[in-house]
């Protein structure tokens, strides 16, 4: 900071600028990840409108073609502590969103992810989980919970590989996933490998020569 950071118009109070970063994903592209803002509403609706029915079904457990105005407001207006959403952008295009919501008064939060069909299987879900866990830890959250449909193999595989000790509980086609987000050694090692890949060449290209 040095001096107080001047925030651009549309950037709300408490917006954690330090959570913004550029990383490389599995196809070699560089994406930008940052906390959501209220002025992202139009972008979120456009993102949602181009998802496949399957992606929407896996996220909302029903064919939820359009977000309601209330949902858009709920999803974009967060307090960055008990409720946080992160968006992933390729240029100005939104390709993924992840969020956590603290379960009232506890140190647990529910997490959810939605990655655009064009950008699945590139490590973006894991990126969102890593970044959400870091932010949540800062605010005293210790456990993440998620519900996943049992045939959402990609999401279940993501949880299995992330490095946290994941417990699963199956009921009626839904898998309840629960894990401590303490950075245990297995997680740190997996994270370090992911960070090496995410940072390859970052900071060298966009800044000109020297």
């Amino acid at each position, binding site marked *: 900071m040095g001096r107080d950071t001047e925030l651009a118009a549309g950037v709300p109070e408490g917006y954690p600028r330090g959570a913004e970063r550029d990383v490389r994903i599995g196809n070699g592209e560089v994406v930008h990840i940052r906390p959501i803002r209220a002025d992202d509403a139009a972008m979120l609706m456009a993102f949602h409108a181009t998802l496949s029915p399957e992606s929407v079904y896996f996220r909302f457990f029903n064919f939820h073609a359009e977000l309601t105005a209330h949902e858009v407001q709920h999803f974009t207006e967060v307090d960055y502590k008990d409720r946080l959403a992160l968006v992933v952008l390729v240029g100005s295009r939104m390709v993924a969103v992840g969020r956590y919501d603290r379960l009232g008064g506890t140190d647990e939060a529910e997490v959810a992810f939605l990655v655009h069909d064009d950008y699945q299987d590139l490590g973006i879900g894991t990126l969102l989980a890593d970044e959400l866990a870091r932010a949540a830890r800062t605010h005293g959250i210790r456990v993440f919970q998620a519900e996943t449909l049992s045939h959402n193999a990609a999401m279940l595989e993501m949880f299995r590989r992330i490095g946290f000790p994941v417990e699963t509980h199956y009921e009626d086609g839904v898998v309840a996933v629960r894990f401590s987000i303490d950075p245990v050694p297995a997680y740190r090692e997996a994270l*370090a490998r992911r960070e090496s890949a995410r940072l390859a060449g970052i900071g060298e290209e966009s800044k000109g020569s*020297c």
Partner: protein
Amino acid sequence: MLILAGPVGEREHDGGSHPERPARIRAALDGVSDLRLGSDLVTVAARPAQRDDLLRVHDGEYLDELESFSRRGGGALDADTYVTDTSWDAAVRAAGAGLVAIEALESSGEGAAFVVVRPPGHHAQRDRGMGFCLLNNVAVAAAALVAKGARVLIVDWDVHHGNGTQEIFWDEPDVLYVSTHQWPLYPGTGRPEEIGGLDAIGTTLNVPVPPGATGDVLLQAMDEVAAPAVEAFGPDWVLVSCGFDAHRADPLAELALTSGDFAALARRTAAFARSPGRLVLFLEGGYDLQALRQSTAATLGALVGDLPPPEPPTFGGPGSEAVRSAARDRRRAIEELSDRLLAVDSLDAPVTERPRWGLGGAR
């Protein structure tokens, strides 16, 4: 010889289940005991900092508010930072402990000092506490030295960026603030482009490193980025914001250091001091008690006992590129700001007093 200043906060300023807790002091003291220094260990009690000492780095209004808030029983200062009825007294004694450590080193003329205090300080800004910190202990000590005409290097290897220390000395040419920290992480400041104000260009030095970074990456930051700037600056005193939360067992961060890495960092940092007896380490973060104990022993053992650390140093994690990129971004920011300053100077015809600069600039 090791001078131990404190302890402060072994019982006071207790926030219940908060990770910044009184047991941390006992863990650090146990780490000191593990060294079995015998008569090489001299303990000096903390005394409260005077208001004038605090006013060098904090606004009077903030001090008044914090004192009365604590006297009324306290509460939450923000989502992460608490104040209790004993916090004010603990914070003022924590801030005074560094001054006592400096006096003790001045009279001994040798060794190093370890200030074992909490609440920690490096997030505390001029007019607000945050990030578990109420008063900026290392800044109070540095400002007292500057008032006596000294040039002070602050090395901050706590895993979080010391935004408070940076802010307080942003325009102070006699303090060089050097921080390595995880990025991204709380509080979100500490980019390499943050280099200090116009009167103190280059006297803020930030090297952010990614999650998973190992000890070799931080040593690279010290050798390749910090060392040239320190050499150009020429410090009389070296103060360390000595957090141990970059340890791989720490629950609040994701770096991968061991106690052995802190020993290596301590040796590098001690080499920055021009004469013996001018090195003071201030306990900041570190929230795993076992890691805190081991890292304390390893760090101090490297300085005064030359003891082998309990864990070997680490290498091979990500971050080497980030260090090189930080060096580049810093150099570019210094050049840009210096150019702007030159342009301004040429318009104001007679330049009588030029700001001091030239740290790590054109190389």
